[in-house]
């Protein structure tokens, strides 16, 4: 299991002190800080988060937490702890299962040595006891959230998400409930399935310097937030509010993310198909992908065999929103 990078134990002791007590192999201090923050152990009394997945720089972070209901014999000093797995691939189910297994071992034995043993076994052989990585399918992980569900959630407005994704704009997904955010956010890359890129996801970001800096170092991200203060920030293009089920275009992208008539009618037909319940997720994804590819090939055909330039697009004298869309899509697809 090459993708697996590191394992850490984060502990919250009786004095409410949170420390990353054990890691193998060692990780950077930034990462230590990030996993401690994202474990949400400090907030465990009010808002206990069992499992979360997130991304920092190019590393996926999977955190599984456990809170003791009464004093534990093996870990008497500790109120709650988290197992954090760092990996280079997106596969929440697989890492949740592994983290759960490790968490169980740690709370029974109270000794990281046993965890290390399991970790090494999984790392080198891909299995331990009942856990076997071959039983986890990557395709399933990618399509775990139903695209139909997202479309029905927002109605025809889902095309705004699609448009933003196609143009590689920055999208914020907000809800007070992290599980909800995580569920919806992993479905968004399905709208641009032709890219098959889940690295644009930043499923859980907190508002502090390190995390926001990391987020802004990339472009075209889709980030999940549970802190309502995110609305005050101005670096996003589209704001997806799960609490009110609305999609807003941010100040920055006013006049840029505007649906053309063609896009609107496409949205209506897709929404109607989803509403009718006759089309499966797969069919919808396929249809969208086909459409996406059509758009791209159209853009490619503009310049014929020559290299596409901005000037050639501008010479077409397209309506402003369409021109912006074409330019952004071309640059996003690397045609330009």
């Amino acid at each position: 299991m090459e993708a697996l990078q590191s394992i850490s134990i984060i502990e919250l002791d009786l004095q409410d002190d949170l420390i990353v007590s054990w890691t193998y192999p060692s990780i950077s201090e930034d990462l230590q800080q990030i996993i401690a923050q994202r474990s949400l152990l400090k907030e465990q009394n009010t808002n206990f988060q069992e499992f979360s997945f997130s991304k920092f720089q190019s590393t996926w972070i999977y955190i599984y937490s456990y809170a003791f209901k009464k004093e534990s014999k093996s870990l008497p000093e500790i109120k709650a702890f988290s197992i954090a797995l760092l990996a280079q691939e997106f596969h929440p189910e697989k890492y949740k299962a592994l983290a759960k297994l490790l968490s169980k071992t740690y709370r029974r034995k109270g000794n990281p040595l046993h965890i290390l043993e399991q970790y090494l076994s999984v790392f080198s052989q891909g299995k331990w006891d009942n856990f076997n990585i071959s039983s986890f399918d990557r395709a399933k992980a990618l399509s775990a959230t139903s695209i139909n569900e997202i479309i029905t959630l927002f109605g025809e407005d889902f095309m705004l998400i699609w448009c933003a994704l196609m143009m590689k704009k920055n999208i914020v997904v907000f809800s007070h409930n992290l599980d909800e955010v995580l569920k919806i956010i992993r479905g968004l890359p399905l709208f641009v399935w032709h890219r098959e890129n889940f690295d644009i996801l930043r499923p859980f970001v907190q508002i502090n310097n390190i995390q926001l800096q990391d987020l802004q170092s990339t472009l075209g991200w889709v980030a999940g937030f549970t802190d309502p203060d995110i609305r005050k920030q101005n670096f996003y293009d589209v704001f997806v509010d799960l609490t009110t089920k609305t999609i807003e275009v941010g100040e920055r992208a006013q006049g840029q993310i505007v649906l053309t008539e063609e896009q609107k009618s496409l949205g209506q037909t897709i929404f109607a198909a989803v509403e009718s319940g006759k089309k499966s997720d797969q069919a919808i994804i396929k249809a969208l992908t086909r459409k996406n590819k059509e758009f791209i090939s159209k853009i490619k055909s503009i310049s014929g065999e020559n290299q596409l330039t901005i000037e050639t697009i501008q010479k077409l004298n397209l309506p402003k929103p369409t021109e912006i869309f074409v330019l952004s899509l071309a640059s996003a697809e690397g045609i330009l």
Partner: protein
Amino acid sequence: MEQVDEIILLSLNQIGLEIPDVSSITEEVFTSDLVIYITASCMNLIDKSLKIPLKFSNEMSQRFRACTNLSKTIKDHGYQKQISYSFFLYPNVDQMRDLFLWMVELLPKQEDEEVMATTGVSILRQIKISIFEWSESKEKTILKPKISTVRLVTPLSFDLQKNSKSKRYCQRLLPLISSQTRRISLSDSVIETNDIGCVLKREEENEWNNEVLDSGLSLQEFQLRKKKKAMGIVSKALQSSITQMNQKYSLSSFFEQERQNNFKNKMFQGSRFANLAKYGLDRKDKFKFSENERPKNEKENIENKEKEKAKTGPIIEEMDPEKMMQKLKEKHQEEVSEIQTKIKDYTDKTAQIENETRNYLDMLIRFEKQLEEMNKTIEDLEKEYQVRKRIQDFLPNHEENIQILQQNIQSSQSKILNLAGQWEKHRLQLLEKYRNRKKLASSQNEMWKGRLEEIKELREDSKTLSQTIQQRNTFYTQLLTEFKKLPKKSYRTNYTKQIFDIVKNVKKQKGDIDKVLLETHDLRKEINRLNGALSRSHLLADEMIYPMAEKDDLGTGAKQVYFLFDKMHKLFETIIQDIQQRGKTSNEIRNLEIEVDNLKRKDATTSLKKISKDLSQMQSGNTELQNQLKKLKKSKDSKK
């Protein structure tokens, strides 16, 4: 009696009454007015609800009424001895003494201190209040003078002990405060500088008490933090004002403003055109657009139009002035709308360009990212290539090699586990240490907090204590000065000695009285015994003689004896009665003598004279009143 008088006079002096400096109470000094004054002020002090005037009228009848009331109030307050209006009109020494003593005893004890304090403190307070009131009233009536102050620099503004340079400066160069300011504002400036110093000190003290102690930082750290905060606030204010300025003078708003200005100018100038045309003046001078701020082609445009107008000028001159005005107005409207649309175009264009540049910037960043990604993939591919190459090398003997690899893995795993086990021991120890320290720190923190609270309380206590000490000190100094002012002869020890002497005397006299009482008792006993013996012997004699007298028919003289005996007995009884009567009368004589003495002492003749004088005064007053009454009646009758 003089000692009693001294005590009374001293106590009266202490409550702040104005009494002539004498050592004893005499009728010459203590006139009716003075007695009334003393009594009234004492009674006012004893019963705060009373408000007896300290001086009565000289009109006899009113005075009489007031004195009657005063004597009544004194009786109501429990004065047992006899007192009436006559005492206040014609005071005598004994009654004065009794009354004064009674009043001095009745003066509330704890009030003594207050009274003592009031003599000093209250006078000061009263002075302050009266000054304040005076200044208030002045402030209302007199216009306030203008106060102008200058911040004075004094050696106190420098830390002289640390900085020798500033010390030198203060010694050699610092101008006197009188030359730092104009003469008029000198006193104001001095007062202000002192005030600032006081306020600063107090603020520092407050800050130290409330914020520094709470924050748990050292003074220097706290000051640093405060400085940072202040700088932050200043920089924020600056930034916000800069952004406001930017917004105010940003491109779009500039255009907007410009457009409006132009419009106004045109309107204004439009009205002027008629005049210009009339007077045939050169319009170019009057056409002052803000030329520098306008795009070039627009300027040219305007110039062209001006030229055109200059050409049409003479024609307009010939036309009807109203029509001309109309035409000019229309032309200008056209011009204005043309320029407006142009400006709008320009703003739109700039916005578009801004948008485009933003888009291009975005794209640029994206391209850079792509480049980076490509480089990364190249690196990855190179790595993969290396691995594949190794695998290729291993392939010929793959089974063996796999086994070797697995063995390697196993051994490195066990090595890692071993190392981890060793590390675990240290880690656990360190973790435990860390947690213990943390616990200790938190408990210590709580302890410090408790200590801090204690310190705060102590500081409060010390503050209040120092305040009370100060109060006591001032009180003490007041008392001391008052004590120094007091007449030296009336020392307490002296009094107590005298009291002890008096008590001794009283004891001696009591012993004498007891002796006399015993003697009289003995005498009474003796008298009783003698009486008994007498009656018994009388009975015996009677019994002996009476039968003999009964039997004496022969006239032996027994009968005569009996008669004589009886007569003798009666005579003796009268003698006894006489003696008793004599004792009583001698007692009476003595009482009368004492009374005579008393009366002599009262000096009846002088008081009689006074009384007769007052009586005549009253009588004359009465006749006057009667006359007035009569007059009134007469006037009434005549009216009828």
